[in-house]
């Protein structure tokens, strides 16, 4: 009996030892699994935060892209209006002062170039440029009507056209004849002279000189403007002995020398004394 109890006790001790080992192994494995679960859960949380951040960035980027697309959609209309304005500005060259219109257009253009979000800004700039084009065209039409109506018994130009007239007019303005009337005519010396001055204070030009180069055209207008100034002192001039001795009483020679002292030499030479005397006529002084 005692032996049986001893054997049973030994078996029981072995069993208890095995059970305790298994329990410890299960507990250890579970602890490791829980630790892994915690690490995975932290990774999932981190991934979720990144998802949220990415979604926020995408939403913002999509909004930016949509706004830019809307601005780009109205850009071609603006460019078309700028092209129309460029044509109008080109047509107004030498006729009306377009510097303010151009500055306004450049300002509107800068606004458009800087805009990224609101298509209405571009639309408004387009309307502004459209209005500027209409204003320039209107000013040119007014200028042309005024020029056409101003001639002595006829229009200011015929075959040279408004652009040709504007070129000759600009040359006359350039040499100091801003207030002097200018008209196209084929009547100068029966059509043989390219331009002539009238004692009533205006200048006529033949249509073809509108195609002359700038320096020749400037010289021609300086020469004719010199005649206008001669007419203003005509009595004193024709009775001046110096006029006779220095210029042989030739108003054309004097006009050439007057053009020289204004900086438009042409092809005729004048000496220093002739130039000094001729310069007085520009200010009404006959010595």
């Amino acid at each position, binding site marked *: 009996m005692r032996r049986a109890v001893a054997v049973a006790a030994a078996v*029981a001790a072995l069993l208890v030892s095995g*059970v305790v080992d*298994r*329990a410890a192994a*299960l*507990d250890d*494995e*579970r602890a490791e*699994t*829980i630790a*892994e*679960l915690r690490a*995975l*859960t932290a*990774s*999932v949380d981190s*991934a*979720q935060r*990144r*998802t949220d951040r*990415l*979604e926020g*960035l*995408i939403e913002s*980027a*999509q909004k*930016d*892209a949509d706004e*830019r*697309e809307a*601005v*780009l959609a109205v*850009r071609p209309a603006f*460019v078309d209006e*700028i*092209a129309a*304005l*460029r044509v109008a500005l080109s047509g107004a060259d030498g006729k009306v002062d377009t510097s303010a219109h*151009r500055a306004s*257009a*450049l300002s509107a*253009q800068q606004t458009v*170039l800087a*805009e*990224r979000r609101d298509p209405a800004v571009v639309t408004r700039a387009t309307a502004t440029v459209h209005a500027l084009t209409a204003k320039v065209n209107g000013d040119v039409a007014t200028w042309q009507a005024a020029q056409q109506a101003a001639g002595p018994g006829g229009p200011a130009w015929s075959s040279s056209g408004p652009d040709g007239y504007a070129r000759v007019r600009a040359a006359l303005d350039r040499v100091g004849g801003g207030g002097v009337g200018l008209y196209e005519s084929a009547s100068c010396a029966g059509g043989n002279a390219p331009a002539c001055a009238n004692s009533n204070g205006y200048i006529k030009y033949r249509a073809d000189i509108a195609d002359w180069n700038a320096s020749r055209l400037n010289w021609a207008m300086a020469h004719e403007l010199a005649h206008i100034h001669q007419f203003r002192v005509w009595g004193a001039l024709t009775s001046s002995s110096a006029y006779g001795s220095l210029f042989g009483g030739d108003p054309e020679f004097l006009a050439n020398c007057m053009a020289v002292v204004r900086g438009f030499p042409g092809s005729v030479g004048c000496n220093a004394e002739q130039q000094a005397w001729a310069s007085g006529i520009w200010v009404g002084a006959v010595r």
Partner: protein
Amino acid sequence: MRAVALVVGGLLVIGGAVLVVSADHQRADALAEAKAAVAETRRQLDAAKDSNHRLAEQLTTLRSLIAEQDRRLADTTGLLQ
């Protein structure tokens, strides 16, 4: 008297054995539950990573589009100089 002691002792041994087996089942169940949770969490992590990858590609595409739009917006072709 001895017989009674044997019976009581036998019952105690059987009861103890039942308790030990029950505790072992509980430990095994808890471990299986934890492993299932790990598998589920790993699946969620993989799904989140896939999703983030797609979102990152989408964001890159949008940023490329915006860069191209900015280039077109800064283009001065046809404008006054």
